[in-house]
């Protein structure tokens, strides 16, 4: 079956513009995570969705970041008024349920803010 997909694979934007990143999780996976990975750094948790529960937004670095998920399917991560420090790879992962704990990652979106 298909894995986690993300689009676009690369995005170059000007400082101050808004960007929207998309994640299609594995069908049937109820848990969905967004991470940020700066060059040479570890994964930084951003936000978590589980079923129809309210998302855990505790990892979002500022109010310029927001995310939505429609049911147990597609999720979009939006960054408003992008800054150069937002440049990173944004990774999405899904899991069958949180207790399964094994996360399946997409290929990521490389965001470059100029």
């Amino acid at each position, binding site marked *: 079956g298909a894995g*986690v997909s993300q689009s676009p694979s690369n995005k170059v934007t000007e400082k101050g513009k808004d960007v929207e990143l998309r994640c299609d999780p594995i069908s049937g996976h109820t848990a969905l995570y967004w991470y940020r990975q700066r060059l040479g750094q*570890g*994964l930084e*948790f951003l936000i978590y969705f589980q079923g129809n529960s309210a998302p855990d937004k505790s990892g979002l670095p500022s109010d310029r970041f927001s995310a939505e998920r429609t049911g147990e399917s597609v999720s979009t991560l939006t960054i408003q008024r992008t800054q150069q420090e937002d440049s990173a790879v944004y990774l999405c*992962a899904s899991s069958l349920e949180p207790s399964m704990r094994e*996360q*399946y990652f997409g290929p990521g979106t490389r965001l470059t803010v100029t």
Partner: protein
Amino acid sequence: SQKIEQNSEALNIQEGKTATLTCNYTNYSPAYLQWYRQDPGRGPVFLLLIRENEKEKRKERLKVTFDTTLKQSLFHITASQPADSATYLCALGASGGGADGLTFGKGTHLIIQP
């Protein structure tokens, strides 16, 4: 605060030898620990999970140990091959799973030389 330490320097191992990677943590009592492999430009791929009450886990040429007293996990690849060259990430998990369930280290870059 929680801290996960993995060797930041690349680890060079000769083909056929056993590669051993270290993950140390402080200020944390994880319920489980995971190891992921990440290739350049790709998302992490799950390899192994070991729970706090387990000392050792094996999967083909991979072996993971978990010492909650030393607060350390060792990840071994036996009979290493050039194809094993990648960055290996250690991730610690809380018992509740979900958003606070997984904290990643920065990873160790492993190079298997033919």
